[in-house]
């Protein structure tokens, strides 16, 4: 298995670029797919187990094979020693015929006689005998004669046997161009006064073949096992992942507003519990959304009903009052003033009713933006024109600073005009008769309208309060325009409906500024305003140039300083 892993690693590294690319792809798949993670970890862990198991098994088998071979070889060696001792026992150690005897003995070891004891074809398999004449008894020099390939016997074994030990060793011998693992068994042989050594070389070819076969079987089995495990892991993960993916898809569709989406629940397992819980949650959310929708509908219906129910009698009252007012010359002089009050208070009542209805529509979220592409300069100028009468009456100069080029923006001109009109009346109310400036500016993304007065200004912290409903900066002040107290809150909601901002700045004694910032197209998200809010736009105007401008986010709901 090791060579396989090595090759796989090589395959992943044809070049650094491709490798990092592959790593990135794999990383992405790894992060995204639970299945890939589970299957890969299973395969990696199983490979380790299979590898270790395979190696232990192989080592055990090899050991067994060698053990049994060794036992057989030792038994054979005992036999052979008996044979050699009986053959050579009677030979005169000094005889010159020794060499011949030796050869005969070795031949007999290799080719036993038909009736003789099993020799080279025993349990231990074929072998090559080596017979060495290690020299005579003390005083008698050995002939040093040897039969067989003594050079194949390891020197360690030889020295052990020469010391009189019965020993064996596994060694590698060369046969032609191949090397063969061989079990060499050595023993001293007692003959007539001579010390001789007999070595038997058992080639382990068969054992090695067996071992190779076992090895390849183990590798093949391991690979098949791994593939099977990967398949099983994949199947098992699928059982979990498929319902999870289904649930994820359902949840996504639900999030996109398909509130009727539910997870199919099968059985009673954990997935079924997940499905049941999800479905319960979905049902609960759906119920609440329905309730909110119904509430919105109710609110809209209520608004509409109130509108109709109040306005019809109001029509009669209004026309009657107008008639009385028009013919007040014919009335008793004491009734002139009441007729005037009746008409003017009816105006106020109507304005209040209209503002209340508008704010309830905005609250109910049923207000609609009828956006069209218009020149904001024109809208601002209209607003200015509509309050010019009030400005004249108050003796307040109204100064317009409009860009020379047209400023096209996708806005609801009625709402924007209403916002600017509200800001202007507000400025006229609180401007103390000093000039009120209306500035329009634009950049590529947004258009800003700034209304600046130089009147009483705002106390610290009032920047947010001005948008509170029915809030009045100074209740004791007279109100020239008789505002409803809802103007700025409606303006704020109108600005939000456009995805825009309405912000206030003010300093006591230095006047105040209201800035409306609107995106030029409906799909733009505001990031800034083309006009600064605060004293910067009127240099030398403020005692504190470092006055922080209002935060660049729409202030929380709340209107009302008209």
């Amino acid at each position, binding site marked *: 298995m090791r060579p396989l892993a090595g090759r796989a690693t090589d395959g992943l590294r044809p070049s650094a670029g491709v490798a990092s690319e592959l790593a990135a792809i794999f990383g992405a798949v790894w992060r995204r797919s639970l299945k890939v993670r589970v299957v890969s970890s299973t395969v990696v862990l199983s490979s380790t187990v299979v590898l270790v198991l395979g190696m232990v098994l192989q080592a055990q088998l090899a050991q067994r094979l060698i053990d049994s071979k060794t036992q057989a070889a030792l038994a054979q060696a005992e036999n052979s020693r008996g044979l050699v001792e009986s053959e050579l026992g009677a030979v005169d150690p000094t005889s010159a015929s020794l060499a011949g005897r030796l050869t005969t003995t070795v031949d007999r070891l290799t080719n036993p006689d038909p009736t003789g004891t099993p020799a080279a074809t025993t349990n231990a398999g074929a072998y090559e005998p080596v017979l060495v004449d290690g020299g005579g008894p003390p005083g008698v020099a050995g002939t040093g004669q040897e039969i067989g390939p003594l050079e194949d016997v390891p020197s360690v074994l030889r020295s052990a046997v020469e010391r009189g030990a019965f020993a064996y060793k596994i060694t590698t011998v060369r046969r032609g161009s191949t090397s063969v693992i061989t079990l060499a068994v050595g023993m001293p042989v007692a003959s007539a006064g001579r010390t001789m050594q007999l070595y038997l070389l058992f080639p382990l070819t068969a054992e090695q073949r067996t071992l190779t076969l076992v090895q390849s079987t183990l590798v093949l089995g391991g690979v098949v096992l791994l593939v099977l495990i990967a398949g099983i892991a994949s199947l098992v993960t699928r059982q979990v992942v498929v319902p999870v993916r289904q649930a994820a898809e359902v949840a996504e569709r639900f999030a996109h507003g398909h509130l009727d989406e539910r997870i199919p629940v099968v059985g009673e397992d954990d997935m079924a519990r997940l499905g049941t819980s999800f479905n319960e949650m979905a049902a609960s959310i759906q119920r609440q959304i329905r309730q909110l929708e119904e509430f919105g509908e109710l609110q809209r219906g209520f608004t*509409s009903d109130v*509108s*109709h129910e109040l*306005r*019809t*009698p*109001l*029509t*009669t*009252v*209004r*026309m*009657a009052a*107008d*008639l009385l007012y*028009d013919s007040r010359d014919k009335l008793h002089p004491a009734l002139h003033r009441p007729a005037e009050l009746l008409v003017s208070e*009816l105006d106020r009542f*109507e304005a209040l009713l*209209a503002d209340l*209805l508008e704010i309830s*529509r905005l609250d109910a979220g049923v207000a*609609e933006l*009828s956006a*069209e*592409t*218009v*020149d904001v300069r*024109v809208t601002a100028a*209209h607003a200015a*024109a*509509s309050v010019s009468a009030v400005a004249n009456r108050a003796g307040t100069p109204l100064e317009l600073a409009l860009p020379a080029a*047209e400023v*096209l923006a996708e806005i609801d*001109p*009625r709402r924007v005009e209403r916002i600017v009109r509200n800001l202007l009346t507000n400025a006229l109310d609180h401007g103390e008769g000093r000039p009120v400036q209306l500035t329009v500016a634009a950049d590529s993304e947004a258009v800003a309208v700034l209304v600046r007065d130089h009147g009483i200004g705002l106390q610290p912290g009032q920047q947010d309060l001005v948008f509170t409903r029915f809030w009045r900066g100074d209740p004791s002040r007279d109100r020239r325009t008789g505002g409803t107290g809802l103007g700025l809150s409606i303006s704020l909601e109108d600005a939000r409906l456009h995805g825009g901002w309405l912000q206030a700045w003010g300093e006591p004694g230095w006047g105040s500024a209201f800035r409306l910032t609107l995106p030029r197209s409906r799909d733009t998200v505001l990031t800034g305003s083309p006009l600064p809010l605060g004293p910067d736009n009127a240099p030398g105007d403020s005692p504190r140039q470092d006055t922080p401008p209002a935060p660049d986010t729409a202030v929380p709901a709340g209107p009302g300083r008209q």
Partner: protein
Amino acid sequence: MGSATMVCMAARVLVVEDDPASAEMLAIALRQAGFETAVVGEGTKALPALRELKPDLVVLDLMLPGMSGIDVCKAIRAESGVPIVMLTAKSDTVDVVLGLESGADDYMVKPPKTQELVARLRARLRRIEADPAERLTIGDLAIDVPGHQVSRDGTPISLTPLEFDLLLALARKPRQVFTREVLLEQVWGYQHAADTRLVNVHVQRLRSKVERDPEHPEVVLTVRGVGYKAGTSR
């Protein structure tokens, strides 16, 4: 066209209003302003009254029992170009546009100021005067001004008086771009800037009658961000 106005002093106004007090008060106020008035309290009676009285103008409440103001308006439009001014308690864009699209020439949100209502009604009764032989072209249309006739290739196209006035205003100054406000003043007779949705809706209604393809207008062209102008004469 202020110089060319003519007010019918005894114009007959049909008031369609279900609330008795409101209807009565409307009648009183209109009579005070010099109109002849007739009142019907149900939508279903509006059409027979129209046929019988042949009023010069109809004041129509949008919410009526039996038959809604919208349906009444459509029914009247199906057989008459009589000016219709709608009175509505709802000022939502949806309601206003729906009312205008059903054929009303103008609308007022309740409660109307009497003076303003009278001024609007008079503006609707006012007709633009013309030279006896004035003939104009706009796009591929021919306008016979004194005969109040518009035709394409000799085929007459039926327009309400208001639509005719709108087309005429554009055709008389073919090079001028009209803002919605100018049109409101010249065609509807508004003195102050008012609801420009009136113009949008009526331009759409006009286009649906005179354009070959209302999606790609050739007679009444939109000038983005400004207003409308006449298409090139052919």
